[in-house]
């Protein structure tokens, strides 16, 4: 019973702050509400005994990713764009038609569905017997799914190399080999438009 009450409280807070995220016009407020929403989702994970996921949710999402978002938003000073109209005029009308349709679809499907609980291989007892959340998850991740895990790490490496390639300033020796190196003005490659 206590769990049910707690679930309703956390779920309401998560959904409520989620609504806040999309209705705030101040983007920093929206981001802080999003962090709050993630913390509440983490609490729901705790209620379902998924302790590891709960901790990861707070560390990675509410912690690292959202703090990074907030920093970027503050650095870029996006507030000046707040007043700008960001929607195409037609979009509003399309949204006006599509939103009720999607809502109706959800309602119809939710009413028509028969809800049954599907038991997976894990419940509280088997998890406890297997050595806990972290041990079981680690076994799955680093034994069963080792190959995709390693390839995913390569994808991250590629993304990092790519960020350097696309963003790094080119070295002086490169600039000097360019055709315009003898002009007085130092030209930055980004502002040079050439034909490929």
């Amino acid at each position, binding site marked *: 019973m206590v769990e049910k009450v707690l679930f309703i409280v956390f779920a309401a807070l998560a959904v409520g702050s989620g609504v806040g995220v999309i209705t705030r016009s101040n983007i920093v407020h929206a981001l802080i509400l999003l962090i709050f929403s993630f913390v509440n989702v983490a609490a729901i994970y705790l209620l379902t005994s998924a302790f590891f996921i709960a901790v990861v949710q707070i560390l990675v999402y509410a912690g690292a990713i959202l703090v990074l978002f907030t920093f970027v938003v503050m650095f870029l000073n996006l507030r000046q764009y707040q007043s700008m109209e960001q929607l195409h005029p037609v979009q509003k009308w399309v949204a006006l038609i599509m939103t009720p349709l999607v809502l109706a679809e959800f309602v119809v499907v939710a009413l028509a569905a028969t809800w049954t609980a599907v038991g997976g291989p894990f419940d509280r007892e088997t998890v406890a017997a297997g050595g806990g959340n972290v041990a079981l998850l680690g076994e799955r991740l680093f034994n069963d799914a080792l190959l995709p895990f390693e390839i995913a790490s390569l994808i991250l490496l590629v993304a990092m190399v790519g960020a350097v390639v*696309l963003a790094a300033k080119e070295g002086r020796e490169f600039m000097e080999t360019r055709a315009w190196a003898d002009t007085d003005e130092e030209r930055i490659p980004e502002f040079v438009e050439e034909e490929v």
Partner: protein
Amino acid sequence: MPTPDVTPIIPELILAVAACLVLVVEPFLKLDKTAVVAVALTGLLAYGAAAFALLGQDMAGFNDMIVINDYAIFFKVLFAAAGVMTVLMSPRYLEAHDRHLGEYYALLLFAILGMSVLAAARDLMAFYVGLELMAVSSYLLAGFFRYRLRSNEAALKYFLTGCFASAITLYGISMVYGFTGATNYAEVGTALAGGENTLGVAFATALVFAGMGFKVSVAPFHMWTPDVYEGAPTPIAGFFSVGPKAAGFAAILMMFLAVFEASVDTWTVIFIAFSIFTMLVGNLFALVQRNLKRMLAYSSIAHVGYLLAGMGAIGQSGDLLAGEAILLYLAAYTFMNLGAFGVLAYLKTQQPVTFDYTLDDMAGLARRSPWAAILMSLFMFSLTGIPGTAGFIGKFYLFNAVVRADLVWLAAIAVIFSAVSAYYYLRVMVYMFFRESEEEFVGGEAISGPLAASLALAAAGVLFIGLVPARLVDASATAFQNFLGL
């Protein structure tokens, strides 16, 4: 904890080590990047050689997620050949554009690594990470000339449509997982064959088809292709036109024959319908292009249409012949298309400012640079499908397989479109041999060095497959039968 057996991924490990080595060596070099090119080439050759040495092996590893068998090895060797040709044609081209960075080769190797995983995957998870590794590296390579507007446009379009396609594929995969609770191809195939859920499965099939269709540019999901090929560095455009397509078809063959085997009737119709539309769009739009890179982009779409007809034939008859023909066609296509892009890369290296890939720029090429004109003609003949070249062998086996599957009308359509394609391929030769250049040509250097090696390799491949196809026909037959577990 048991140590996993790494035999199935030895070639991939070599490639990963080479790519990381490139990244380590690069900071120590100044303008001369020969060492990086050497590392990349050695890595690719070792990758191909390791794959070749494993020929005849048939084993799965890493919880049955990846296999090494003749099918996977066929594609690994093909990717190694495409990689070597791309690396060889790159250094001078990049130097001419003042952007010769070692990261280029690292990204290329990572893209090949992704393709290699894609072709060998036997599990939806491994399939998806391979696809993403290939895609992320490709986006970066497309936008490698970041100070050029067209390159930026290419990268952005490729990135956005590619992400969209990946998400659609992933949605299809998630539905498959939802229906079956498994990610292994064989397990999923068995579960789908025994289950009901026909509408949902059809929907998942359609989603995976649409997502993969984006990757191999099936019309109407082809919109990104001409823009990306036009904006990407030319060697990379050539690589895109062969590598990810071959990998995509390797995955499509496995997916639709192993995973969606149960809904074969549904997808056969889909493949045949999209085949006709893709041939139509590719060939008709190629007719009106005056930019050679765009023309080759639309022609690559047309070739995808022929390959889809082969997929339709497999679905229709369950005949092995069509599968073998698809592998053969992919091999032939790799050499001829990469060769054509190689000649364009050479011309651009020679005249970085004035050459703009238009037909008019090709005028009088036979007098200025006879070797370039002769090689280009060879690749154009091959793309048309003139006997004696690889393109003819590819088309002959593919259309033959389509006829054998009782789809004579589809083969007839494909042949008619091939005849149409002769117009835009041979028009390039008309410009090269029978038109005079309006501007006076300022002398450039002749084809030499690594680029010559690359073009020689492509030309040798085209002629070898065209004149003595028996070896490759046998190889693709073994590879495909092996894949079906016969």
